[in-house]
């Protein structure tokens, strides 16, 4: 039995079902990230865990206790909001102590706790300011400080970093991860940023259209996406997904697809899951880092195959150069070493690690190999 269990929970607003039957179960101390594009129901699910939204059907349990009908304040959770939601008329100290005051924590204890949290987050010198006098990053810290006073069973974060600028976001991301490692408290974290999801989580639930599309560790989600949506959403630059056809190449199955000039290329599959399926239309998925120059190919892989293909453009990105070509009528991006002399217009050898290739059914969009 999990520490936090979401058991066939749904949410409807009137006739509109914004969250379909959802099952999630995580253990104590895990860092669960709910990730998905805007409007997919992440915040709704988080608010249901918090008790700010009622569950339309199903159940949510924390430590085995059903949360149906339990008020937010009685769930032993703490939440950090996207907009920080600091009380504008109270000082930072007031903001942090408000929750303890409401829970009738005696004053000396509150003071100790505030000092502790201020120390942990380095906001000691801000305690007597109003939220209006703080920068975005400072507000973010205060919002976290407010949550930290509770010693909750579960921390809930709703896109806590999305209002910060890029640099600060990366710093705070690291701090949140450190905080999790230090405290070991279970966290449920909502974001639309797949990089945040991959870097922070011990477990990811990818959501889309009110459904959990896939649930798993970051590695599982990244290497074995369950369907086209997850494959396309997770990873940056995103996975190359292009149409191909299964053919027989000397007794083993291979993917056949068109290049820019109309000629076709073959890539033999690493496994033989598609052996008896010649002629089947598929969507082939290969991550950019599995398409390299020949010298940069993974030496441990026994399924590196070379495709000669004209380069459309190159995008030098410092450490790597991203090289774009046309496969199956789509842009395919490869990640070359920075010093490879690849130039637009050249015909170049792309080394593809087929051990990392995934295959989807174009109709059902689910994974088939």
């Amino acid at each position: 039995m999990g520490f936090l269990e979401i058991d066939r929970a749904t949410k409807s607003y009137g006739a509109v079902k914004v969250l379909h039957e959802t099952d999630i179960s995580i253990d104590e101390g895990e860092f669960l990230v709910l990730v998905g594009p805007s409007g997919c129901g992440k915040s709704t699910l988080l608010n249901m865990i918090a008790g700010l939204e009622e569950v339309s059907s199903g159940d949510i349990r924390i430590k085995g206790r059903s949360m149906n009908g339990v008020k937010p304040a009685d769930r032993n959770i703490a939440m950090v909001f996207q907009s920080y939601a600091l009380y504008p008329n109270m000082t930072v100290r007031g903001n942090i102590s408000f929750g303890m005051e409401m829970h009738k924590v005696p004053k000396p204890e509150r003071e100790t706790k505030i000092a502790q949290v201020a120390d942990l987050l380095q906001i000691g010198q801000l305690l007597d300011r109003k939220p209006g006098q703080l920068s975005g990053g400072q507000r973010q810290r205060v919002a976290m400080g407010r949550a930290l006073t509770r010693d909750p069973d579960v921390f809930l974060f709703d896109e806590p970093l999305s209002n910060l600028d890029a640099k600060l976001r990366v710093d705070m991301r690291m701090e949140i991860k450190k905080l999790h490692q230090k405290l070991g408290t279970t966290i449920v974290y909502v974001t639309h940023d797949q990089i945040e999801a991959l870097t922070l989580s011990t477990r990811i639930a990818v959501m889309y259209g009110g459904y959990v599309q896939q649930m798993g560790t970051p590695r599982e989600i990244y290497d074995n996406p369950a369907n086209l949506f997850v494959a396309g959403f997770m990873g940056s630059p995103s996975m190359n997904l292009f149409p191909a056809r299964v053919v027989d190449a000397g007794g083993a199955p291979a993917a056949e697809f068109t290049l820019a000039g109309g000629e076709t290329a073959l890539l033999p599959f690493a496994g033989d899951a598609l052996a008896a399926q010649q002629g089947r239309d598929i969507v082939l998925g290969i991550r950019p880092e599995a398409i390299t120059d020949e010298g940069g190919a993974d030496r441990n892989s026994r399924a590196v195959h070379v495709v000669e293909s004209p380069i459309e453009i190159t995008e030098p990105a410092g450490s790597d150069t991203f090289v774009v070509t046309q496969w199956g009528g789509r842009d395919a991006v490869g990640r070359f070493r920075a010093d490879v002399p690849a130039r637009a217009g050249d015909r170049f050898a792309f080394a593809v690690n087929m051990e990392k290739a995934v295959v989807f059914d174009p109709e059902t969009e689910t994974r088939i190999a």
Partner: protein
Amino acid sequence: MPTDFTSQAVTAGTGTPAPIRKRRRTAAAPRVILYLILALFCVYYLLPLCVMVVNSLKPLGEITAGGMMALPEQWTLAPWSSAWSTAQVGVDATGLRPYFVNSILMVVPAVAISTILGALNGYVLTKWTFRGATLLFGLVLFGCFIPFQIVLIPMARMLGLMGIAGTVPGLVFVHLVYGIGFSTLYFRNYYAAFPTELVRAAQIDGAGFFTIFRRILLPSSGPIAVVCIIWQFTNIWNDFLFGASFSDFDSQPMTVALNNLVQSSTGVKEYNVHFAGAIMAALPTLLVYVVAGRFFVRGLMAGSVKG
């Protein structure tokens, strides 16, 4: 109502560069004309008040002699004291004092209660919405615009049934019923822009319905409370129809008494006393504007939400 909680842009310190001399000189001419016109309107609006004040400070003889516009030759406060405590109002020579007290007793509770209830209504309608909340708000709005005349007779019957006909509490009740519509409208629109996440955060912190209202919303409600109080105070203080319809001799508000003062003078019309009485009736609303207007501060919400 322009109540934007989130967009208090940080503009301080981004001063525009000083304009070039030449441009300033050419810009001066329209500016002078503008100020002239404004001054003219200022005089136009202030003139009636000046006439009233001046005439309330001279003996009756100077007015009847035809010197309406002239300054008093002999300054006197007698008309004021007469209007306040000795003039004939209706049948009694009590001056306006008891009626002034009536008005205060009517307007203070009516304004206070309607403002508090309006704030609570606005809070519920925006932060604790329920099925049919929009419809309910529509009905409340409709209530704002029902003409006074339509409710006169049903209201008289209601007050009779409640046993408060012809009393000050009866008047308070009438104004309360009418005032809640407007105060609800004001607060609902104001709180609609209040970040709901603050309410949710407070809920998670363990604050209940009234605690959230008192500790989170009310401290940020200054500007709208001032607007609401000014509006309610002015309307209720100045009301004549309800006062005339639902009060007895001993519960008449100031406006009705002023009318009686002007009407009931036997023999000579004491214009100077009438002027003094009229100013007395107008002073409290003026005072409310002067005092409360200072609290018309924006920007109380800066920084609650992302910056």
